[in-house]
Structures are given as structure tokens and as C-alpha cells.
């Protein structure tokens, strides 16, 4: 049977090292299957995180051969290079142990930006049509599964501790375009504090497992923030 040469990051907190494992290669095998094989048959102390295994929950993201990926939907045949896999924890987040990162900073930024739906006091006077431009702009970004793959792929996150990251800004853009939301100004104020830190590398869009384009969403936020700043409205937390 063909074997995969697998290297997995082992360690707690900031300390650790790559450890090698030989894992049998099977048809239609996913990277998560490989990690699970190691944990079940080779080293039960391996820490990693997964839940749904079908690309919905967003909990199994890891760094695979240097790229952040959702491991449950990434086939070994697509990710391996010459039968080799190097599997590590996501970048830009503190490591708890082995492949499990602390997602708290990711969600804390989400909370701090109040990137959540805030119902309007009055229902929209006009019914929301699925083909109106705002709704289509919002729909383009709603399939986010909060997996933090974009957050790990983003250099601006690595370079700026206060940058909210692609996922949060993408969410703010969907909310700003949702006519049922009651706090468009608040969402754009939150975006104004950080969206300019996006350098349009488009690593998030390349990496997003559900095919979203946060860079395009952030470009929309930049346009609005620019327009509002010239119109005299440029609130937002001072840095």
C-alpha cells in the first residue's frame, strides 16, 4: 500500500516541533482522514478539532503544506506534494496544543466590531426583492462558515494587531447592504476603523473554502468609508 509522509506540528503554546508519521494513502482520503488516522492508530495524544466533517461547521481548518484549508473537504490528492503532507495549526492565532488553535481573538474582533444583524425598528417599507442590487451584494457574502481560513491567510492580520480581518469585514459589508438591518451607520463606522488596512493581496479570496471574495467586500466598505469621510462623517475608534 502506498504510504503518505506526514509531518504534524506537535507542541503546546509557542513551543513545538514537526513530527513524522507514515499514513496509508487511500482513495478519496481527506486531510482530516489523515489526521484522524494518526490520532486513532499512531498517537492518541494528538490534539485537533473537528465536528461536522461535511464543510459546514468551520472547525477543522488547519495549515496544509503552508496553505490554510478546511481539512474535511480537502482531498489528499489535491493538497499533497509528492506524497508529502505538512499539517500545522492555523497562522495568526495562538496555538493551544498541536493542531488546535485558540479561536478567541478571531471571535472577539467579531464581537467588538458588532458585526451582527441588528433588526430595524420598522420593517422595510418596500419588500426586499432577491434581485435588487443591495440584496445581491449582501447575498454574495453570506455563506461564511467562520472557519478563520481567511484570517490565517491574511498578511494584514499578521501585520496589524487591530485589523479585524477579512471575515468580520465581509460580514459588515453584507450587513451594510441588508435593508432589514437597522444600524448601517454603525456597521460602516466599525468598518472605518480597520478596512483601510486591507492591502488587497486577495489571499483571503484565494483561500476561502466557500468561494467568497472578502477583498471585493472590503473594497465596497472602503468606497463607503471614503465617501463618508469626505462628507464629514469619519467616526470610529481612534487608534
Amino acid at each position, binding site marked *: 500500500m502506498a504510504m503518505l509522509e506526514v509531518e504534524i506540528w506537535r507542541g503546546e503554546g509557542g513551543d513545538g516541533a514537526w513530527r513524522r508519521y507514515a499514513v496509508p494513502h487511500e482513495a478519496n482520503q481527506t486531510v482530516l482522514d489523515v489526521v484522524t488516522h494518526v490520532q486513532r492508530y499512531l498517537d492518541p495524544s494528538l490534539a485537533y478539532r473537528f465536528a461536522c466533517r461535511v464543510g459546514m461547521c468551520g472547525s477543522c481548518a488547519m495549515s496544509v503544506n503552508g496553505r490554510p484549508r478546511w481539512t474535511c473537504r480537502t482531498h489528499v490528492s489535491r493538497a499533497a506534494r509528492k506524497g508529502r503532507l505538512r499539517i500545522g495549526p492555523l497562522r495568526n492565532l495562538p496555538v493551544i496544543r498541536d493542531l488546535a488553535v485558540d479561536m478567541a481573538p478571531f471571535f472577539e474582533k467579531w464581537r467588538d466590531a458588532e458585526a451582527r444583524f441588528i433588526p430595524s425598528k420598522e420593517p422595510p417599507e418596500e419588500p426586499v426583492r432577491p434581485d435588487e442590487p443591495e440584496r445581491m451584494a449582501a447575498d454574495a457574502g453570506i455563506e461564511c462558515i467562520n472557519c478563520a481560513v481567511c484570517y490565517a491567510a491574511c*498578511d494584514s492580520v499578521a501585520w496589524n494587531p487591530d485589523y479585524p480581518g477579512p471575515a468580520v469585514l465581509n460580514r459588515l459589508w453584507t450587513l451594510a447592504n441588508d435593508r432589514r438591518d437597522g444600524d448601517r451607520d454603525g456597521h460602516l463606522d466599525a468598518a472605518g476603523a480597520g478596512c483601510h488596512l486591507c492591502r488587497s*493581496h486577495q*489571499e483571503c479570496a484565494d483561500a476561502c473554502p466557500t468561494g467568497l471574495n472578502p477583498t*471585493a467586500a472590503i*473594497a465596497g466598505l*472602503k*468606497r463607503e468609508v*471614503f465617501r463618508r469621510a469626505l462628507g464629514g462623517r469619519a467616526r470610529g475608534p481612534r487608534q
Partner: protein
Amino acid sequence: MRRGPWWAFLLHRLSGVALAVFLPFHFLVLGLAVERARLDGVLDWTDNVWVKLAEAGLVVLLALHLTGGLRVLLLEFGRWSDRQQSRIAVAGGLALLAGFGFLAAAFA
């Protein structure tokens, strides 16, 4: 691993930093124009192949920062386009063209 947009960003940033460093010296030299002889002194010093090549480099940096900046403005303020790679290629190509144009003019 890095793709086109990342390299476009890097060139845009490095050219910007280089121009920011160059700018005060550029202004200082031009400020000498009140005394023509001193400005001519500096300009005579620049009249050799190596300085001309360095100046061509500055022209490329300026053109690179311009086309890279137009790319960013288009990306942020224009309609989103998936033709990023071709825009990057056009930006880089025009910048190189400006550099060759300078060399052709300077050594004509």
C-alpha cells in the same frame, strides 16, 4: 506560493518608500536653482552613465508607483474585476516602458 496581487503590492510599497526617501533630496537640489551655478554644479555631476541609469531607475519607480496606484484605485473604487493578473501585467509593462523611454531620451 505568493500570487500576482501580492507581488504587485510589494512593488507598489517598495517603490513608494524609495520615492519618499528620494523626494527630500530632489527638492533640496531644485531649491539650489536660486543660484544657477550651484544647480549647474549638481547637474554636471549627474551627467554620467551611472547616474543616468540610476535616474532611469527612479523613473521606473515613479511609473511603477503610478500604475500600481491606479490599479489600487481601480480595484477599490471601480467595479470588481476578476482580470487582476492582466491589470498587473499592464501596470508593470507601462512602468518599464517609461524607464526605456527615459534611457532613449537621455542617451539620444
